[in-house]
């Protein structure tokens, strides 16, 4: 587990570097456009990956069987037993198709999880605007019934504390409500029992990467929150999260960017499919 | 497929002789009549490819 987590955090560091290069071009384009471009590229990438990680021959056979049975239903439509048998075979083959898709899915899942983590930095949330408020949640390590350490958020020009710290011993969490003061990529500094702990804070009104959570060393968190250095297992702080507002995607009318990503990448993939000769 | 109108008396006469003349249907009868006439009138389909089309027929060289 530890090894894997370390590997992921190392991959994240690489990803951060690569995506850092994209910083300029991404911020120039409007969010919906860059998301569309990214989706299109992703769609093609997924398609290519799918082609080389799946058993194309088997998928081709299964698809042929499905089509043959569909046509059989049409050609022999007056023969009800044939129609029913064909239908059963189609269902069976559709299931087989799913099975054959498992392998490429398993292969794809790791790189794309990391990639989605990176994209999430850009599209999941928008930065705080000046004067906007947000909740900061600090998760402390579970150390039995010990009382919570004394924690404070050091004053800075980046944000003002409106409420807090509020200490919730039952969850070993500490909350602040902060109000953003000026634009920029800031760092919040917390004093936790003699130790200083940092968390990025993004304030601005354009497209910029927003790291919602500085995670601990848990696989899932590392995948979802790649931007900041994870807390060590021995650290008394396990994660710090800022409740940024969601970014709204223009195209789909939904506030879930991943739906846009999904729809556009699928669309592109299906458009490109015949040219790349991929059987799905 | 375009349809052609035929006087119903003519059609009845056609029908009554179709089978006697050895046709399987009135349509075949009418088609044959038309083909025969067209053959007289139409320019031949000047097709060099005739030879090509026969190539490979096992019975002939």
């Amino acid at each position, binding site marked *: 587990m530890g090894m894997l987590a370390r590997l992921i955090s190392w991959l994240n560091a690489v990803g951060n570097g690569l995506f850092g290069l994209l910083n300029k071009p991404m911020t120039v384009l409007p969010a919906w456009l860059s998301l569309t471009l990214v989706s299109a590229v992703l769609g093609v990438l997924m398609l290519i990956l799918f082609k080389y990680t799946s058993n194309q021959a088997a998928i081709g056979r299964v698809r042929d069987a499905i089509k043959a049975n569909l046509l059989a239903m049409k050609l022999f439509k007056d023969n009800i037993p044939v129609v029913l048998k064909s239908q059963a075979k189609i269902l069976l083959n559709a299931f087989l198709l799913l099975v054959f898709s498992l392998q490429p899915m398993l292969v794809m899942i790791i790189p794309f999880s990391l990639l989605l983590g990176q994209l999430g930095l850009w599209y999941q949330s928008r930065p705080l605007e000046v004067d906007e408020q947000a*909740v900061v*949640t600090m998760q402390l390590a579970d150390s039995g019934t010990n009382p919570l350490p004394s924690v404070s958020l050091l004053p800075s020009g980046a944000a003002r504390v*409106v*409420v*807090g*710290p*509020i*200490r*919730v*011993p*039952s*969850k070993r969490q500490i*909350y*602040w*409500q902060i109000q953003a003061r000026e634009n920029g990529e800031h760092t919040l500094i917390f004093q936790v029992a003699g130790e200083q702990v940092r968390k990025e804070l993004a304030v601005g009104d354009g497209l910029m990467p927003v790291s919602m959570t500085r995670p601990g060393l848990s696989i899932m968190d590392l995948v979802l929150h790649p931007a900041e250095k994870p807390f060590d297992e021995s650290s008394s702080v396990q994660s710090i999260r800022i*409740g940024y507002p969601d970014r709204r995607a223009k195209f789909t009318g939904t506030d879930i960017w991943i739906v846009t990503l999904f729809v556009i990448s699928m669309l592109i993939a299906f458009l490109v499919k015949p040219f790349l000769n991929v059987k799905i | 497929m375009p349809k052609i109108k035929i006087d119903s008396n003519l059609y009845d006469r056609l029908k009554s002789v179709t089978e006697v003349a050895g046709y399987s249907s009135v349509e075949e009868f009418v088609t044959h009549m038309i083909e025969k006439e067209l053959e007289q009138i139409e320019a031949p389909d000047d097709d060099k490819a005739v030879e090509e089309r026969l190539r490979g027929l096992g019975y002939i060289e």
Partner: protein
Amino acid sequence: MNKDKKNQIPRRSFIQGAGLTLAGVSAGLCSVPESVFAGSKPSARHPKVIVIGFDGMDPFLTEKMMDTGQLPTFASLRKSNGYRRLGTSNPPQSPVAWANFINGAGPGTHGIFDFIHRDPARQCAPFFSAAETVEGEGSIGFGEHQIQLNFWPFNHSPTQTLLRREGTPFWNYLDAAGIPSAFYDLPSNYPPSKSQHGHHRCLSGMGTPDLLGTYGTYQHYAEDGPVRTKEEPGGMRSMLFFENETAPAKLIGPMDSFLKEPVPITIDFQVHRDLDAKAAVIELQEHTVLLKEGDWSPWLQIDFPLSMPGPDKHLSGICRFYLQEVAPNFRLYVTPINVDPSNPATPITEPEDFSKELASRLGLFYTTGFQEDHKALSNKVFNEAEFAAQAQIVLDERMNLLNDALENYDDGLLFFYFSSTDLQSHMFWWDSDQDHPARPKEQAQQYFEHIKDIYRTADGIVSNMIKDYGDTARILVMSDHGFANFRRQFNLNTWLRDNGYLGPADATSIMTDVDWSQTRAYGLGINGLYLNLQGREKYGIVAPEEKDALMDELVEKLEAVRDGDGSVVIKKVRRSDKTYKGPHTAMAPDLIIGYKRGYRGAWTTCLGDMDKTVFSDNDSAWGADHCGDSTEVPGILFSNKPIAKEDPALIDLAPTILAQFGLDKPETMTGKNIF
């Protein structure tokens, strides 16, 4: 959702409702929506008419304040002959008064005579006069679920609320003439009236229910609350039990109407407190809210999933949390769960998307008919200051809404309603040197000062309006009635019993232990008196030929009633057959009791209960009212054009507005143009 509001109201919720409706009555008169551009914009330009309704704004206080220079804008309008006291309805209750305004004619045309009517076929079964809920039919059950077959091809009607107001509202004439009109919070207009031609839009006001189908049910959580959730009029209380500074709680939502035996949908949430920081964290669905003691949260959208046999259906509600105290007694107040204007579970605007449009520009806001939580004050969940603070939130939201209404207003009619002058007056009014029955004198004076502040605010609103639109628009400022102290209550049914009109002599309620064969008259509602008439009431005993004599006798005796100190109690008793004209008088009481200022029908008598004594002090926080004789509580009317009519009344406003747009007065209207 409105499942519990049936034609026949269960007694318990009826009393609750009655209280609310009382509040509504008073609130109602103030609200006059503004006309905004409606629907498709007609190419032609129209005159501009802006009507501001300050519910319950009282002429006597207004005049006094104008005289002392506290209301400069109003005073200047008065100077240019733009002020009159405005005749109200008879009785001066909100549903009646606003229906008069809407129809431009008296109750005989709209059929609303009191906030409560009774069904004589069932003797005296009471029901709400303004709206009724009709049970749906044609549903199908799946296990414990049921589904309403209100779609093609069944098209059974679902449970729905119908507006009982009869007659034609005046905006229909505007709508037909292509003149845009917009009404914000107009009372007595829920469900929101439909626009036939698309030029009318409205946000429904007083009478709009919350998501639970009530007129507003707050939820209160405290360490000293009841172990099992306890209902009280207008609210519910629960206990919080903190373990390791965290307490679980349940938010009670609307009924799950997809169950055969509906139970409320509840949403679990958690409250964490930090005694040192004097603050708390509330985690509810995806919300994490941090509150210091005394903080209000923003509006939170709560998702209530209905249990369907198929995919879940969801109702969206909104509420705000208010952290009253962290220690020693942790107390947390939650507003009634309002219909979410951005995703309304039931239409609260015409057209339906109007509320979404508003929410997209303004964010979330109160949508229930009664926004100031007077019940929280009455039930001592709020103290006076808290109530005033909450009322201020409402006022601020409405000011915001008014600004938006004006920004989106081009021409036609704009009606805008303020409830602050009414509901706060019910709680804080005290224009007398006499002792307040419920609070010390200085305090009563101090709160009355707060009412005056609101009047000054109203002056400011009108001042801005005159500045921006004085030259281009006809501006009318009106109230539906005035205000008066409510110091003493008079129990009509006790009086009838004690004077031998109602038996037996030890009866306690006309709903339970009355003997109809000994009863010739009974009271119901705030101002109504009914004869127990043969052929009309189920157990009627008064022969039609005795009717006239009996009524005259009752009028004479009632007008002669004196309080212990010799004060006149009832100014006038009116015979309805001589008061109301029109096609819809069937539900009218036989006599309407017109109380003097300072008096009102007792809380108990409204639903037919009797007290030991005829008179008693009103010890409720609800210390002022306006349900006396119509001549005792006139409203106000200001205009930026000199008013010609000497004694304008509510019914004159509709014809006046129509005339501003060059429309003739319809035959059904009895009011007259005031200019």
